[in-house]
């Protein structure tokens, strides 16, 4: 009789379901909260965040990088997780614009929320946005310029892009200096995009200004004891082989001896085996031997006796880069000296950076790899500097492959917003509202940049809007003087690919969140109970 009143449990105990408006509301709230969190870091005058790790309160990161902030914070809201994911993808794909993509998606959703409050159906909003994003992309593509044919101009473009990227980071004060460093480093790759070849070494001490690009290669290792500390025109063998004890790898090998004399004989045999390996190595006619693994004292001594410099424990990346710069090959067997490519450079020497000894290979034949040495007062500054340099390197390597550039400082956004507004004026029906909303979301980017710099954003953005409508397509925000100006002259340039990716990913994520009308949350995995 009572079953009418008994609730029927459909889902798992503790699992929950949110439907319709409530589901939508919870995604909007989450997404917008994340946006508000990162939006103050946007632009040249954006502020930094301190992140404190939960497990280790001493582990502090100070950063301005959107992706770093977002991946480090704990988030429970599913919509917010989508935003974190696009930011991370943006970081993996193009390296910069990680904050912008999150902010744009968040602003789109904020506009979407208003439309839903006016009882516009989400599907109508989505179809409006689709038209808008297409128009915006066409406008962006049309405004892109390509200077790749003119070498000097292209370099200037790259410098400007680097400066734009760096200007929002801690390296702002030295952006001229660092822009030159990163552009030189990327151009050395000659079109390759393998950033592994650019090695960044952080050494605390000194000031940021003392950072420099080293044309050669720097290995943070020590030269073996008793070896020469300086070699000119060395012959380098790079190896990945065991130089501690050369184990027998055949399975089941086991030593059984019945007397002390046998044992000592075996020990001699082992020693002999190692020495014969050393001899084989020395027979390559080399005078520098670099191994990825450990080198024990015995072989080290043998090498020192034969005038071969030995360097042990070079890590895997180090070995790969070294092989690349010295034009050598990574060797694991030593029976065919005639087949092995021996690497070379002009000079190996042990030098001091700050207070640490490092090994410097200068005058390398293949200049594809290089090293950026960062100096700075504290390790926090160095880490943030490394992230900034990494962003700049990523953007530049993307630009080297996709040479088109667009104007930054809110100019491209205004340009797209104008095109989208024109589309809205021609579109009949409710979709037009969604298209207008898209334009408003685009205009939020310059608004936030101006706000962050402490200027009157409403005034500046409306001036900017007027300028664009009067046909001044190069107008943007001049954040130095707090007015609008010709961005082409100021030289705030961004990579076309980054900008396009921001637009497309932000739209994809916003659409995805918009389409959701039901939120099903599984019960959290139960903790393993302690039995007693």
């Amino acid at each position, binding site marked *: 009789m009572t079953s009418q009143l008994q609730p029927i449990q459909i889902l798992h105990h503790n699992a929950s379901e949110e439907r319709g408006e409530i589901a939508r509301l919870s995604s909007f709230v989450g997404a917008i909260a994340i946006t508000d969190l990162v939006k103050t870091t946007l632009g040249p005058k954006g502020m930094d965040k301190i992140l404190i790790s939960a497990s280790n309160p001493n582990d502090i990161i100070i950063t301005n990088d959107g992706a770093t902030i977002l991946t480090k914070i704990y988030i429970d809201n599913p919509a917010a997780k989508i935003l974190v994911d696009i930011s991370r993808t943006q970081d993996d794909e193009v390296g910069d614009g990680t904050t912008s993509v999150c902010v744009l998606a968040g602003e789109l959703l904020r506009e979407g929320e208003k439309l839903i409050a006016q009882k516009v159906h989400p599907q109508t909003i989505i179809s409006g946005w689709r038209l808008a994003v297409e128009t915006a992309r066409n406008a962006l593509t049309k405004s892109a310029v390509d200077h790749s044919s003119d070498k000097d101009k292209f370099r200037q473009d790259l410098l400007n892009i680097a400066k734009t990227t760096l200007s929002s980071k801690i390296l702002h004060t030295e952006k001229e200096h660092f822009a030159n460093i990163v552009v030189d480093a990327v151009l050395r790759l000659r079109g390759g995009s393998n950033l592994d070849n650019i090695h960044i070494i952080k050494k605390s001490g000194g000031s940021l200004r003392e950072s420099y690009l080293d044309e050669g290669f720097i290995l943070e290792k020590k030269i073996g004891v008793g070896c020469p500390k300086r070699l000119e025109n060395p012959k380098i063998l790079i190896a990945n082989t065991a130089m501690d004890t050369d184990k027998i790898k055949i399975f089941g090998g086991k030593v059984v001896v019945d007397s002390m004399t046998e044992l000592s004989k075996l020990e001699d045999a082992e020693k002999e085996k190692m020495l014969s390996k050393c001899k084989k190595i020395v027979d390559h006619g080399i005078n520098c031997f670099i191994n990825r693994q450990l080198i024990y004292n015995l072989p080290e001594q043998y090498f020192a006796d034969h005038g071969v410099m030995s360097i042990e424990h070079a890590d895997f990346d180090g070995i790969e880069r070294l092989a690349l710069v010295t034009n050598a090959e990574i060797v694991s067997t030593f029976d065919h000296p005639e087949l092995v490519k021996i690497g070379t450079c002009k000079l190996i020497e042990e030098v001091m950076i700050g207070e640490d000894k490092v090994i410097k290979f200068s005058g390398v034949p293949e200049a594809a790899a290089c090293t950026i040495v960062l100096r700075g007062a504290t390790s926090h500054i160095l880490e943030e500097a490394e992230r900034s340099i990494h962003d700049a390197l990523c953007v530049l390597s993307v630009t080297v492959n996709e040479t088109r550039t667009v104007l930054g400082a809110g100019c491209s956004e205004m340009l797209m917003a104008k095109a989208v507004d024109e589309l809205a004026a021609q579109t009949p029906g409710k979709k037009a509202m969604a298209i207008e909303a898209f334009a408003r979301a685009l205009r939020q980017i310059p608004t936030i940049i101006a706000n962050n710099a402490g200027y009157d954003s409403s005034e500046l953005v409306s001036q900017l809007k007027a300028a664009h409508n009067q046909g001044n397509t190069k107008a943007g925000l001049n954040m130095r003087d707090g007015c609008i100006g010709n961005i082409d002259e100021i030289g705030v340039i961004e990579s076309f690919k980054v900008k396009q990716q921001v637009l497309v990913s932000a739209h*994809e994520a916003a659409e995805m969140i918009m389409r959701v009308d039901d939120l*099903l949350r599984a019960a959290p995995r139960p903790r393993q109970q302690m039995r007693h």
Partner: protein
Amino acid sequence: MSLAFDEYGRPFIIIREQQAKERVKGIEALKSHILAAKTIANIMKSSLGPKGMDKMIVSQDGDVTVTNDGATILDNMQVDNQIGKLLVQLSKSQDDEVGDGTTGVVVLAGSLLEQAESLIEKGIHPCRISEGYEVACKIATEHLKSISDRIEFSKENCEPLIKTAMTCLGSKIVNRYHRQMAEISVRAVLSVADLDRKDVNLENIKMEGKEGGKLEDTQLIKGVIIDKGISHPQMPKTIKDAKICLLTCPFEPPKPKTKNSIEITNAEDFKRLGEIEQQYFIDMVEKVKATGANLILCQWGFDDEANHLLLQNGLPAVRWVGGLDLEKIAMATGGRIVARFEDVSADKLGHAGLVREIGFGTTQDRYLSIEECPNTSAVTIFVRGGNKMIVEEAKRSIHDALCVTRNLIRDNRIIYGGGSAEISAGIKISSKADEIATVEQYAVRAFADALDAIPLALAENSGLAPIETLAAIKAQQLKDNNPRLGVDCNARNTNDMKEQHVFDTLPGKTQQLLLANQVVKMVLKIDDVIKQGAESDE
């Protein structure tokens, strides 16, 4: 009593307490089941059709999935109710059998049960209802067969197939580029299809996803892509006219399977063993080299020394290739997988026009793409998208489209979508219902009403007035005697689904009816539920 004492005076339980057991009986059980099924159907309803909405699902570990695919939603929903679980199974079997229409089948089952509820209230026995449903289902499937159409296509003219795939993709997030996605799916299926035997092995289509880029960058690659890089940084990254040796034995010292131990008793033995080991590596590489191979794909790892020997001999190699990938590569390149070095020979090598390593974005994730293979019947769809969830959802959508295309190749009969088939079948069933003299008449009529749920949901999701729209279409169908009229979801100003090119496959639709009917019959048969109490932790 349920409690007894042993000789030390410690109590122990003989029969577990009964309170934890739950039991529901008779009509009550039926009603609670129907309620549960209706609740689930209601959740799914809003995902139906081109304007359906998505569901966001947070897993146990906090991972987020956004999807429109009925089977995926139900699978991840953690349904606890026993009837709910039946519906999950229902959707899954539709997915396994047909691959599409997983949402529709659940909505239909829910609606059938809803209609049954009112009949039960009238005092009709559940068994009579199932019998009536059975009759109605038969009428419906026969009617669907009579209104079905055949579409003609060939390898050259695949336009009708693309149109059908587009219908399938219309309800997913990829519908922005659904023309492109549909083309990719159809071309993929056609390249692996055996048109003479009318069969398609979907396992030959591999799907790889990588976040980044845009959905438009999704492409069909005639070959295989694997998520691996070349083993040594200095081996060439591009190999033309590759002769591929596929190995499932490691480039490592032998590990006999039987337990053994080699005892080294003196220094001589030690030296000899060292030499044998060296020789072993050299022999392995020599054997492969002798066949003329210029690329080695190995399922296992390499020793450092072996790796270097391969480099020295100019043999680029890839290690840790998955077993399934290896099989696909073998199929595509015409090679044979070799399990022992002794068996390596030139005729077992696979061939490919171009093998290259590609890197993406700034993190340099490396993929190996094997292209221009002699056997084109292995293809890869490489999905890109702005974030992980989009890539995953796009993969699921493409999978649905692949299934639909395969079904068309197996059986080229189609019926028109947009709810037109359901409406037409409904009309047919209700006219037949009057000819039945027994109580089943009511059940048959209820079946017809239940079919209305699909067009109603479609209309509601598209923002139309559902009942008004349905009534208008029904009247129009009867007047024009045109079974192709359905709900105009995309606002194209025509109700004729032939003009809108909205098709479904006949087997898919029939399967939907049959499966839904079966589950409903099963649920109606249950009149007693005994639930074992949960194990307590005490």
